[in-house]
Each structure stands twice: as C-alpha cells, then as structure tokens.
C-alpha cells in the first residue's frame, strides 16, 4: 500500500467537490424540516434534478441552463409532494418514500438515450493572485462556481432563518403550527413554499452530480446521496452552520472510500460507507441525552399534519 500517492491538495479539492451536492440537497431539506415537514423524497428529487439538468445542458449546450432545468425539475417533482401532504393531507413519510421511488423510475425513463454523452461543463473560478497561492489556491480557490454558490446558499439560509421576520415565521410554523395559525400565519402556504425550495435545492444538488462530479448520466446515479443529505440535517441538529461541517465530514468519508479503494484496501470500505449513518445515530443519541437541548432542536411540529379546523 502506498499512501504517498495521495496528494493532500487533490484530496482537499475533491472533498469540496464531493461535499457540494449533499450540501445543496441538505440545506433545502433543512428549510423544509424547519417548517415542520419531513420530506423523505430527497433522493428522488435529486435524481430528477440530475436528469433534467443533464438533458437541458446537453440540448442547450450550456451548463448554466442545465442548472436552471434541474431547479425547475426539482420544483416540479416536489410540488407533487407538497400537493399530497399540504392540500390532501397525506402522510408525509409514505408520500416522501413514494416520491423517492417515483423519482428513480421517472428519471430512468426520461434519461433513456442520454447515457454515454459528455455534458457541457463549467469554467473554474480563477481569482487573480488568490487562486495562484500554493496549496490553498488549487485545493480551495479554483473550483467551479457551484461549490461557492452552495456555501453562499447555506449562509443565506442561516441569515434568513435567524435574522429575518419571514425566517422567524417559518421556524414558528415548524415549531407549533396551531399557534402560528392562531396568530394568523398561513401555515400551508408557508410549508408549500418551503417544500418547493427544498425541491429546487435537491434538484441543483442532483445536477451537480450529473454535470460536474461524474459527469455523465447513468440510471440511479445519486446512489444514496439523498439519504446522506437527510442524515446531515439531523447530524447538524437543524443548524445551518453545522450543516457545512456535516457535508464536509460526510463528503470526506466518500472521498476516503474512493481513494482507499483505488489503493486496494479492502477492509474498511464497508465500514466507511456505514460511517455517515453511524455518526448520525451517535449525534442523535448525544442530542437526546441532553434533556433541555433536545427540545430546542427538532422542530416541534415536524412530520405532523396541519389541519385548520374551523
């Protein structure tokens, strides 16, 4: 085994790339869960985003249009979930799982015929001087723009949730929808919007996989990234800044896994694939062992159906 073939610069660079799609999907899901809705369809929304983004990019010849297509695809499929759970008051867990299965199927169908094509890509960002710095330059400061957009989005979500009135209202709806309703806030409308935002983010995350990370279209290519995104939200205990940490940690595990595989290490890979979920369980235990803090973490109305009686 030769670990010297692993370059720290390349590792760090690929870590940032690996973390981006799950970070995008997770920040969307965080907003959804903060509004009190549990959408287990992240995997399905990601793969629909991946295929929509890929097709749009190939047909228009522009990766940016691809992103737009992915965002619309994500919004469209999440609107099914929003309609089912918010208007028809269907069970969120069942609808979310159905959404994942539906997304996997529908993406395979519309992506048929696009396998084996190379999509148009993004130019990497080049910041004069900074991108030329040794180590930091190639590892952190010369990626495609989406990597930075992802981080910016997390910061914006943090700002929105904690510093703006609308963010406070969204958290209030997720915390106690009856009280929010009594104060005159439109619970269903707010949740509907949050779900569409979640769909858009998951779609972008999926497109990042098919346009940058891989980059090509294959059936089922998200390979569990949506589930990891869900796990990260819990890992981050619904706090945006911890979500960045979680995405890098879980992204790092994927990178380690690939590199170890390339080096021919066989044991450990299975353990590494388990690691994100194990860490999530440990975090959950740590949250619940602290009696008072746990009440301040998971949104109080998470997964509960809101029915405006009277």
């Amino acid at each position: 085994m030769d670990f010297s073939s692993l370059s720290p610069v390349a590792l760090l660079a690929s870590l940032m790339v690996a973390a981006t799609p799950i970070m995008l999907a997770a920040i969307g899901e965080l907003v959804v869960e903060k509004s009190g809705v549990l959408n287990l369809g992240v995997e399905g929304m990601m793969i629909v985003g991946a295929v929509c983004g890929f097709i749009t990019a190939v047909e228009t010849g522009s990766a940016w249009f691809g992103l737009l297509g992915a965002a619309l695809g994500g919004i469209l499929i999440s609107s099914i979930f929003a309609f089912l759970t918010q208007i028809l008051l269907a069970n969120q867990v069942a609808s979310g799982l159905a959404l994942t299965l539906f997304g996997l199927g529908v993406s395979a169908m519309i992506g048929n015929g696009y396998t084996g094509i190379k999509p148009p890509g993004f130019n990497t960002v080049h910041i004069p001087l900074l991108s030329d710095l040794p180590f930091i330059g190639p590892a952190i400061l010369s990626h495609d723009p989406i990597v930075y957009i992802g981080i910016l989005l997390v910061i914006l979500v943090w700002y929105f949730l904690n510093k703006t009135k609308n963010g406070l209202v969204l958290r209030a709806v997720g915390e106690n929808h009856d009280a929010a309703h009594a104060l005159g806030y439109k619970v269903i409308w707010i949740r509907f919007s949050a779900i569409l935002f979640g769909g858009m983010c998951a779609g972008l995350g999926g497109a990042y996989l098919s346009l940058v990370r891989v980059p090509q279209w294959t059936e089922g290519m998200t390979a569990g990234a949506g589930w990891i995104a869900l796990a990260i939200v819990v890992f981050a205990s619904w706090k945006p800044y911890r979500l960045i940490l979680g995405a890098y940690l879980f992204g790092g595990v994927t990178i380690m896994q690939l590199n170890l595989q390339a080096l021919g290490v066989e044991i450990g890979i299975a353990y590494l694939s388990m690691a994100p979920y194990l860490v999530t369980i440990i975090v959950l235990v740590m949250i619940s062992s602290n009696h008072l803090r746990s009440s301040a973490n998971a949104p109080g109305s998470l997964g509960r159906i809101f029915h405006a009686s009277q």
Partner: protein
Amino acid sequence: MSSSSLLEINGITKSYPGVIANEDVKFTIKTGEIHALLGENGAGKSTLVKTIYGLVKPDKGLMKLNGNLYSPNEPRDARTCGVAMVFQHFSLFNALTVAENIALGMESPPSIDRLSNKIETISIEYGLPINPEKMVGSLSAGEQQRVEIIRCLLQNPKLLIMDEPTSVLTPNEIKTLFNTLKKLKSEGTSILYISHKLEDIRSICDTATILRGGKNVGTCDPKKENVRNIAEMMIGETIKIPKKKSTISKLVALEVDCLNWVPRDSSQKQLKNISFKLLKGEILGIGGVAGNGQDELTEILSGEVLSNKNTIRLFDNPIGDIGVNKRRLLGLLTAPEERLGHAAIPDMDLIENTNLTAHTRENLVKKSGIVDWEKTHELAKNIIKEFDVRTPNAKVAAGSLSGGNLQKFVIGREVLQKPLVFIVNQPTWGVDAAAASSIRQAILDLASTGSAVIIISQDLDELLELTDNFMAINSGEMSQKINTQGLTVDEIGLMIGGTGAYWKRHD
C-alpha cells in the same frame, strides 16, 4: 368619553354542523370599560371571541368598531384595527425565546435587541417581570401568560380580549394583573374579559354579558348583582355548594420524609427537605405560585420520578422506589395537571384512556395479556354517568371533549378506582363553575369515605373551601402544615410568597 361605544356586536350567528355556537348575539363594548363575557364551557364564548379576532367568520350579523363596519378576515386584520387577544391555551412557541415569540405577534417588529429593551420597559411599567432571552418552554404557566399579555400590550390595542386570564395566577399575581388592567382602562383601552371566576368579574368588570347555549341571556352590572344569581343565569339552574364533612383519623396514610431531589435540567425546580404526614380522611392543600416545584412534587409522589425507597411511605410501606402502576395497585392514584397529553391521550377514545390508568387496579387486562375491553367499556360508561361527563358516548376521542368535561372524566376515572391516597394537581384549572363545583364535591365525598387527598392548586379559594390543612410551596421548599380553618386569603398569600411565621428554612 366612557359612554361612546367601541365595538358593537349585532346579531352574530354562527353554526357548525349539528351545533349552533352563536345565535343572534348582541351587545356593545364601550370605550374604556372592562366588559365581562360569562358562560359555561360550550356556551359559545370562544366562537364569539374568535369571530371578533377574525379567526371565525359569522354566518350572519354585523360588527362595528368605532362606528365603522368591522369584519376581519384574519387575525392580522383584527390586530391592525387595534384588537388584541390573550389566549387561554397559550399560543406560544416553546423552542423560541420570549422576544422571538413576541416578534411573531407583531406586524413590523423591530430588531430583536431593540424589541428586548422594549419588552423590559413594558414589563417594568406594568409589573410583569420577564426575561426576554429565555426560552418560552422553560417558563411556568404564569410566566407564559405574561409573555402573551406583553405581546398584546406592545401593539397598543384599543380592545384587549382576555380568555380566562386568572386561572393560572396567584392572588398577588391577580392583583398585579388587575392593576395592569385598571391602568389600561384609565388609558382608554377597552377589555373583553372572559372568566368563570365571578369574584374576579365583580371586582374588576363594569358590565357583564352572559351567554348560555349560544344566546345572550342577559347583560348586567356585576357589582350590583349577587354572585349566585349571575352563576345561575349562566347555567340556567341552581348550583349546589360543596358540603364538607371532616372524617380525619389518626392513621398516617402517606408519609414523605426528607425528600430532596436534584433536577436534571434547569427547567425543573430542586426540591429541598420536604417532609409531611397525610392522615387517612384528610384533605391537604398545597398552594404556591406556578413553577415553585408543584409539578416535580406531583411526579415524585405519583411515581413518574423515583426517589429513595424510604422517602415515601404508604401506610408504612416504603414505596419511594416503585413506579406508577405498582403504586396504583397499592392504592396511591394521581391526576396530573395537564388534562391533554399527561392525564389523557387526546387522540385515544375514553375507553382506551380509561384502560390506561385503571388496568392494574380494576383488573382490565386478563392474565393472558389480552385487554378486557368489555369491562373497560363498562367502567368508562360508569365514569361518564357518575360524573356527568357530557359526551355522545365513550367512543369519543378525549381531545374532543371540552376542558370541563374532560377534567370530570379524568377525576372520575381515578375516584371510581377508590384510591386510598389521591393526589390531584390543579383539579379545576380552566373549568366552568358547574363542573368545578361537581369536581370539588366529588373530592369531598371521596375524603369522607376515608381516602386521604392532596390537592395541589393555585386557586386559593378552592383550597380554603376544600382542605382541612394547608402547606405552602415556595422555591422547592414547603412550609409547616397548618389548619386551614381561620386562614384568610391574605395570610395564604404571604405564606406562598415564602414569608411569615410558618417557614422554617433549612439553609
């Protein structure tokens, strides 16, 4: 000034499938008056109030605010017009801070820092102490109500609606609240005051409108009218006053010996050196301001929280280390404060809820582990009959019962199991006069059969009326036990404040 009318309610009618909640209700609230709205549970008070606050749209009828047509589509419209409301079941967010909760009730809140300063100013001005940075979930019921009141006051309302405001307060807190209300009144704010406590209404309200069965059955000046007359107008029949017949024996039923308990987190109160003896047939009242250790004490006595084996003794049996069901089997039964979610499961029906606390003592589960639903149903029907629980049948979800009816069910469920020791926390919180008087009678009857009873309550009139002996609880410590007879509300007020001759502090 005071003769001009602020809100005219004219012919409001609202019906739900099968029920007419309001029928042709008509009255006027004048500027700068405190107007009482009286009625039993189900009389249509909440629907009417929700109509005024824009949560419910009436089928028929008009409202005029300051002479202009007023028909709010949503609470926001009501707030913009200067109508604010303090809810009975607080509409607060536990995981948000006091300041954030208050910001949510405002149309254009300032930054949280500036708001926090404003909250502190108002809370000092109106004597409602509160820390704006605290999580609402860690506050007591009394403190949570202050948050609601401050939230309304920040909007400078013209009309403030208060739903059962004093049900969680102590005499001192009530005095403060009344001073706040009088101050508001002198500033020209009108108050619509909903309560079951006729004494409160007599001491503060200028006018009272009485609802029964959705209709306005009378408007009067509560200061001139006799309390019983008003109460009887409310329920449409004569009220029985609970009769007390003391039968205390010398046998110690329950003994608590040097109970010390350290909480797991800061939202709970530490209990220090609590010792007392409860005799067979005795009714012991424990009074105090909300959040002084009452809930913790209830949980330790019921067995939800375990303590040392010998700390609690039931007829000389050490029971401190055994759980709820075993204590029930031995004869110690508890009815906790929260009706919904603690004493009963809202989404389960009355039969299932009956089984949950009665299965050990009433043998409702067969040896094979199969639930005896037939027997459970019988018991549930019995509770409903004996305690006059108004429900179509026993297969109704507990959460759909009105507060008073559910409380009658919760108390009845325990009383029918013939407890040797019965512990009840806030037996008549938010319950109407008729239901409260029947619950109180049931507790007295239970004691006269030889059961020992502990009533933990913030309603001091109730403690004076029912109990043989009284102890105050303050900051997790308890005063000496003294005879209730001859005590006045003022003396009790001092005791629960932690001062007076009956305190022996262990520092």
